[in-house]
């Protein structure tokens, strides 16, 4: 059973991620006063991209994207979906923290190979942004770890079932707010959609991606969306015992994210970093201190 889940789970994550992509396009369209594409449009896009010929720019170019995708897939395995978490025992939050860097790094590796100035600008933005949100994320995760006294995310979820959602419990609410503040950056939505920034740097790292590379990048994007939302549900909103309830919670988070996405333009990278290192980090630090002081 366990082994089956190991293979099934990433697929579920992928499906959910892609559906979320479709849904987000639909919801955005509504706020734009239009109908938007069919919900399955991203699936069609990905199929189309896989069937197109694509030019490679070298081995690292191929490898990087796979690496990034692998990173995301591994994270997925650590995240409980409802009650199920294929790799629940080991690592947990720390693994996630590390693996979350793998995505940007892989893309950076790959895109760096394409020698397109837009791509290199995009990479630098991506890495800076990753560094930008890693710091508050670390603070948040540390607060959770010290509060719940565990590094396993499954444990966190289990404990919340006893104590209520951590977002509703003091002092974790502070860290929770900090997490929500960096969530747009993790999801790479506006105002932090500055890695792709099609109007500025022609979709940045992806500028040379075509065909199956782009398809993989899209898949990776869908997965990272899943990861970001799933992590917040697990950490802040108590996870769920039933996958459907879990999905519902994810949906709510997604909607909140989309509202923000629809309401703001994108920031410049230095403004983004300044923001991330100021308010979320500050709040995260306060949250950590409170968690350490008030906690056991």
């Amino acid at each position: 059973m366990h082994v089956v889940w190991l293979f099934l789970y990433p697929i579920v994550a992928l499906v959910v991620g892609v559906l979320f992509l479709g849904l987000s396009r639909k919801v955005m369209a509504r706020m734009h006063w239009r109908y938007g594409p069919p919900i399955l449009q991203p699936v069609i896009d990905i199929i189309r991209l896989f069937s197109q010929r694509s030019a490679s720019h070298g081995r690292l170019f191929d490898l990087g994207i796979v690496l990034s995708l692998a990173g995301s897939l591994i994270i997925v395995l650590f995240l409980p979906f409802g009650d199920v978490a294929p790799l629940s025992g080991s690592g947990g939050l720390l693994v996630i923290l590390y693996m979350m860097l793998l995505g940007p790094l892989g893309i950076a590796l790959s895109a760096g190979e394409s020698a397109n100035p837009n791509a290199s600008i995009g990479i630098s933005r991506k890495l800076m942004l990753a560094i930008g949100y890693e710091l508050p994320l670390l603070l948040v995760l540390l607060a959770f770890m010290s509060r719940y006294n565990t590094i396993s995310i499954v444990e966190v979820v289990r404990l919340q079932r006893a104590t209520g959602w951590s977002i509703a419990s003091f002092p974790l609410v502070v860290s929770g707010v900090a997490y929500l503040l960096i969530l747009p950056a993790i999801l790479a939505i506006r105002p932090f959609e500055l890695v792709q920034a099609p109007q500025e740097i022609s979709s940045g790292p992806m500028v040379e991606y075509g065909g199956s590379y782009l398809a993989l990048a899209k898949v990776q994007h869908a997965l990272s969306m899943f990861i970001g939302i799933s992590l917040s549900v697990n950490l802040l909103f108590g996870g769920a015992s039933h996958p459907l309830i879990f999905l519902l919670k994810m949906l709510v988070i997604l909607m909140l994210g989309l509202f923000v996405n629809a309401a703001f333009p994108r920031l410049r990278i230095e403004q983004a970093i300044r923001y991330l290192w100021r308010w979320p980090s500050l709040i995260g630090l306060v949250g950590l201190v409170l968690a350490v002081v008030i906690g056991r």
Partner: protein
Amino acid sequence: MDRNQLVKWLKAPAKMGHKYSLHAVYFCTGCGIIEVPPSITARWDAERFGVLPTATPRQANLFLITGYVSVKTLRAIIRTYEQMPEPKYTVGFGSCPINGGMYWDSYNTIKHLDRYIPIDGWIAGCMPRPEAIFVAVTHLWTLIDKDMADGYKRYRKHYAAYRANQEKVLRGLDWPPLFPVEEQ
């Protein structure tokens, strides 16, 4: 089982993908671009047809050549076209690429675009309305269904001739041939 039937079935999803996911290069080649923003935004909403503008040619499979093409733009167009991954479709938008249009006697615009890159469909009008873009999209769907949208194949087949014409207009192309050009 019939072998052809099998091939057809296997190809069906890809074909479906090509049809319903036409991502257009966003390239304002001429004045026709003025009708593209309305058609991709709230009033007409081309995304319902799966048509989206993309930032780079690598991600696109549809090239809307919007309006007249000056010599300088032709270079960029060929560049862009060659960067697009196959299969790719081109649609000439407005009168000017068909036969010169308004600028039939201008020294600096291309008269027949299909002599430089292959075109799968033309939209008449000056300007064509957004609805015409949608009809062009459905037209392209039909062509893809019937395997008639074969511009990229023609480009391969006649690459030498295309390249010769391109070189004639743009003295010296500063990039190597996309496909090997055999001596004829």
